[in-house]
């Protein structure tokens, strides 16, 4: 099957990116600087990510908030204009179909950003589940992320309106002559922005950003290690159709008003199963693991207790370049999940010592005003 490309594909090649197939797209996994250096640069200055492979969707309709609330456990009725919330498409058993960010553009219009690998399924799910709403796929729009402590100063130069945004807020504005929608959000734990722009304008915007001294291009490799350090879930690793938000440690993403004692309790797929987990903690939970020493652990490897018994499995692993060593997330039996618990991971027959560690592994630096 031919890989799809984003509007920045030629630019990635020009910048010397190593390209890999990802969710059906030919995407940059790293640039010549390498994953560790790109990771550090994002935490120190600002990194530019091409996330145009992600799905951008508009949902319009007089009852759009109520209709969307039938698919996700968020408080969308109460979401302010140009405010965002992280939420989940749940299934009938309380598992997760995808995680997404919803932004309210107006009373009757919501802007959704969904995962690349899930977007076809998400769009079908929206079209089937949202009677009376119009579902518009923004296939002609690219998405760029600018992340890091230097991102705000860069935006102040290029787009002063965006530099006023606080975490999980957005605005329609312009960069040069290009119409854009910018939100203060991201996937690194840093202050930063996501810029939705027409495909035709994306490369010019990317070049303007890269022309700033603080900004370097960052590939998917560092995107993964940055999000892992920030303690953020990746669909297909920490989240899938078999894991409830409670097991995933995402109870905070179930809005107060949608919980059993809330004003609009339930009403989303799998509410009963999720409420059962809220009432009685499930057997497994997601934890962070810091490796003692330098030998990396890998996704899929077994987590063992002090007696060498299998108690879970690594779901993501990376080199935490800012944390200072290999890190991982795992699903393990709840009783072993206390911070500081000494466990090990079976790395091809070698027991590598790990410690259950508080997440995020590095402090989040979101700008809340």
């Amino acid at each position, binding site marked *: 099957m031919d890989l799809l490309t984003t509007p920045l594909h030629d630019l990635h090649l020009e910048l010397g990116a190593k390209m890999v197939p990802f969710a059906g797209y030919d995407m940059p996994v790293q640039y010549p600087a390498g994953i560790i250096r790109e990771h550090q640069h994002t935490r120190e200055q600002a990194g530019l990510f091409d996330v145009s492979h992600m799905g951008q969707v508009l949902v319009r309709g007089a009852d759009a908030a109520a209709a969307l609330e039938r698919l996700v456990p968020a408080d969308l009725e109460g979401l302010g204009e140009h405010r965002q919330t992280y939420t989940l498409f749940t299934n009938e058993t309380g598992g997760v179909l995808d995680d997404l960010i919803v932004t309210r553009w107006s009373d009757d219009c919501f802007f959704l950003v969904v995962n690349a690998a899930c977007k076809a399924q998400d769009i079908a799910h929206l079209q089937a589940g949202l009677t009376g709403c119009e579902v518009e796929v923004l296939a002609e729009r690219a998405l760029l992320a600018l992340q890091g402590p230097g991102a705000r100063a860069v935006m102040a130069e290029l787009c002063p309106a965006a530099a006023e945004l606080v975490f999980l807020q957005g605005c329609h504005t312009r960069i040069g002559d290009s119409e854009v929608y910018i939100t203060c959000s991201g996937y690194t734990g840093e202050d930063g922005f996501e810029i939705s722009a027409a495909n035709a304008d994306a490369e010019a915007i990317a070049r303007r950003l890269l022309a700033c001294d603080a900004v370097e291009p960052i590939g998917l490799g560092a995107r993964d*290690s940055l999000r892992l350090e920030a303690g953020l879930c990746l669909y297909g690793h920490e989240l899938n159709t078999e894991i409830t938000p409670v097991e995933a440690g995402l109870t905070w993403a179930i809005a107060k008003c949608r919980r059993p004692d809330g004003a609009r309790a339930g009403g989303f797929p799998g509410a009963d199963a999720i409420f059962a987990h809220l009432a009685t903690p499930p057997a497994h939970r997601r934890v962070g693991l810091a490796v003692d020493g330098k030998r990396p652990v890998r996704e899929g490897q077994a987590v063992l207790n002090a007696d060498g018994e299998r108690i879970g499995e690594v779901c993501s692993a990376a080199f935490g370049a800012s944390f200072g060593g290999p890190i991982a997330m795992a699903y393990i039996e709840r009783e072993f999940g206390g911070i500081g618990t000494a466990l090990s991971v079976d790395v091809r027959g070698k027991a590598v010592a790990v410690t259950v560690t508080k997440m995020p592994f590095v402090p989040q630096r979101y700008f809340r005003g």
Partner: protein
Amino acid sequence: MSQTPSELRYAKSHEWARLEEDGTVTVGITDHAQHALGDVVFVELPEVGSTLAAGDEAGVVESVKAASDIYSPVGGEVLAINEKLEDEPETVNADPYSDGWFFKLQPSDTSELEELLGAEDYQAACDEDD
């Protein structure tokens, strides 16, 4: 573009071997290999004093992306390992043919070096992979 020094011998599994003046053989991984692996974060080396046959597993190199076994290009007794790699595994990326060496052997049969690839053939094999 990867560097492939002409004075070294190469295994298809991307190790290089250098016959030193004192008759020992130094082993490392190639520039092509370190480039393909990406940032190296951990190297497991054989034990000093152990004996390896040509093609034996001699350790593991772990990058940010994956773990790869390393194989001894020739047989012999391990005389020394590069202890610097324990604290500074990134040396493998920065300098694969000198400071980033892996281990040193007393070869049991130097004719095994002849069975390895010369620089041109190794480079050709890499170009085919790309």
